[in-house]
């Protein structure tokens, strides 16, 4: 187990470093010069030259990367091109919102996904199963932003049950916070839950068709116990990976969903920064999101070992 964790850890660090180099290089892929973006309407040749010197763009790339990564490791992502604000402030301000969004959406995705998947798998070919398969395929195909628009039209505008936009910090009013997060959670969670349901259903059908499940049934073990302790426990092994995959999916979805609900998280920050070509923020967001995904993969890998006794011996 420790060896498993160690090898995974090392490969995660490797991927992280490689990604950080790519993210660092973004600054140099800009056609022309980043100085033009920074200066906006103030981009005169003199200003550009002056700024490039100030930014140290004349140094060799490895030096620049070293400087950048050292700063990043201290949490210093530089300052926004746009308003000169330290990027770190933006990230610290917005990361918790996105994290909550991610956690909530993941909870919804897992709870709904697993239960629908399990229920559907118990009677394959039944009406419940068929309709769940249809729903799942539909869920994967609906653009989540369209779903979000429709959901907010219904629950917020028409019925008035939930706030239409914005975010109330949990410290200010936990109930309002919960209400303000519900629609984004569902808009994000539904799509992922369909993906999980699909996998869970497949895995369950496969597991319930195995010899050891038949053997358990043939030993007179009650069906609910077979489903829970043989079925679900075994089916979870492949599904846990799929749940892990949902982290990048939800993060990707949050980019648009946050915009629809004006949720002040990393997603709306990203879109705004992309439209503004505010590269330091884009870089920081990429680093944070990539770390989050790498970290999840690590946790998934480890929990995979934890669930699967075969991996534990390694």
């Amino acid at each position, binding site marked *: *187990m420790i060896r498993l964790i160690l090898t995974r850890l090392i490969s995660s660090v490797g991927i992280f470093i490689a990604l950080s180099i790519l993210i660092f290089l973004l600054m140099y892929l800009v056609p022309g010069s980043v100085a*033009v*973006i920074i200066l*906006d*309407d*103030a*981009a*005169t040749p003199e*200003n550009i030259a002056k700024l490039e010197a100030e930014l140290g763009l004349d140094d060799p790339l490895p030096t620049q990367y070293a400087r950048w990564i050292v700063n990043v490791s201290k949490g210093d992502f530089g*300052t926004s091109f*746009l*308003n*000169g*604000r*330290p990027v770190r*402030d*933006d990230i*610290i*301000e*917005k*990361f*918790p919102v996105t*994290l*909550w969004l991610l*956690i909530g959406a993941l909870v919804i995705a897992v709870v709904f996904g697993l239960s629908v998947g399990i229920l559907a798998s118990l009677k394959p070919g039944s009406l419940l199963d068929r309709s769940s398969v249809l729903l799942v395929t539909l869920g994967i195909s609906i653009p989540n932003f369209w779903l979000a628009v429709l959901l*907010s039209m219904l629950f*917020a*505008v028409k019925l*008035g049950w939930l*706030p*239409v*936009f*914005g*975010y109330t*910090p*949990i*410290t*200010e009013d936990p109930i309002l916070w919960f209400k303000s997060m519900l629609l984004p959670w569902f808009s994000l969670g539904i799509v992922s839950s369909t993906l999980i349901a699909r996998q869970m259903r497949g895995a369950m059908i496969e597991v319930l068709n195995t010899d050891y499940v038949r053997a358990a049934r043939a030993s007179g073990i009650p069906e609910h116990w077979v489903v829970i302790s043989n079925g679900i426990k075994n089916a979870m092994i492949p599904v846990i990976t799929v749940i892990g995959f949902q982290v990048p999916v939800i993060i990707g979805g949050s980019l648009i969903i946050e*915009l629809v609900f*004006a949720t*002040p998280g990393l997603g*709306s*920050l990203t879109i*705004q920064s992309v*439209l*503004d*070509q505010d590269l330091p923020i884009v870089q920081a967001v990429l680093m944070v999101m990539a770390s989050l995904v790498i970290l999840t993969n690590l*946790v998934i890998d480890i*929990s995979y070992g*934890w669930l699967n006794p075969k991996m534990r011996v390694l």
Partner: protein
Amino acid sequence: MKKKLGMSLLTGVVVLAMLFAMAGPAMAAKDTLRVGWSVPARKWNPHLNTAVMLLGHLEPVYEGLVGEGPKGELLPRLATKWEQTKDSITFTLRDDVVFHDGTKFDANAVKANIADVQSGRYPPNAKKLIAISSVEVIDATHIRFHLNRPAPSLLYTLQRFAGLMVSPAALKSNSVDKVPVGTGPWKLDPKRTISGTKYVYTLNKEYWDPSVQGVAEIEINVLSVEQQFNGFASGELEVAGLHSAFVPRAKAAGYKILSPEGPHEALHIYDRTGKIVPELADPRIRRALSYAIDRKAFARVVLQGNSIPSTQRYLPGSQWHSEEIEDLSYNLKKAKELMAEAGVKGFTFDTYSQDAFFDMMNEPIAGMLKKIGVTMNIKSIPIGQLFVAASSGKYAASIMPLIERHPYDFYQAKLAPDAFMNPFKYEDKEIDALAKKAARMDEKSAAPLWTEMSRLAAERGYLIHIGSVHFAIMVSKRAKNVKGRSFSPYNIFFRGVTVE
């Protein structure tokens, strides 16, 4: 053991997440003006901004020497009075004003601010103050700007970005990059502000004129159109700026609508030399473009009547309005004839747009030009690069607002051979001569010359005027005494507004 590890990992994540969330703000006060806005704030130093859309975030915090009335008129603000001669302006300053950071406002502060603008960090604003050759501090409450050229519109310029006063201490320490420090009736609360999304302003208790502080707090929320409507419907907003296209929707919902005079919009033809689009060198084709644009339909349908169509820069009633101007209004037949006469079947040029509101200007005009075979390709550019794009020489033409109100500024920005927005350096000697002459005369006798200049610019197709495009401001019943602000989309005056 392993289960414990899993549990403790989970608890760790949750606790961490909660700690992060705890960093949020505290309770909101009662009489808060909640405003819907379509763009986030950019730089907190007002001298580094020009886009009028960005005035809203700065308005609660900053003041200039000269204030602005609902129609753009000059009002005493940090200066109680002023006197303009041919080569100087002398201001008498208030002596009871303190910046939010405790720095005293005086003549030296003004001098530091003018120096900041003139440093050239931000050329569009530096150019506006080009007429100020030096600043002379007479005493703490008196200051004199020496002028090196005629500056008929300098005082108007000082009402906005280039003239807003920032604490000299904050300028020096660059802390203004993070938090705005002005003299205004409200100050930014950085703790409760979520940059890019929500800006919270609290009462400046030291303010010199408490009578204008109708609300204790102002909250500016960056929202999309439907979020604004939704916010109104659910009582979460009191004021929001709107594109005129949405006025019927707002009226149907029963909200009060203000529509102050909007900025003047025109299709600027930059490539008058025909360098990248040869067809545009032909004045007949440029005029054909003017005939192709159905300004009335545009005003009636797209802008819901909330606009004044015009084929020239100044509207009737202005001292610079021309009565003799040729008829350049919509006439599809004439447009097609002119195209045929020039031997051109059609052509294509690129222009740009940066957001939904520019789209709503560009798209219908593109549709109209299409009817005479002219294709206007609208490219998206990053927000904030409008002026860079206009002056880049990459675009032959684009629809832009004319934010310069005085003809002299208009000339300086668009028509002069070295104008910022004349990237192809086109020179019209007649117009140059008129402008130079008029600039040296007093306002009254210069008026006919300015009228002539603006008429020529329109007739020669340098600018295809569309008209004054009004924007609307949607006001809920709870907000009182809300006044719109001319030539400035969406902006209102926060002074004096109260909320029930």
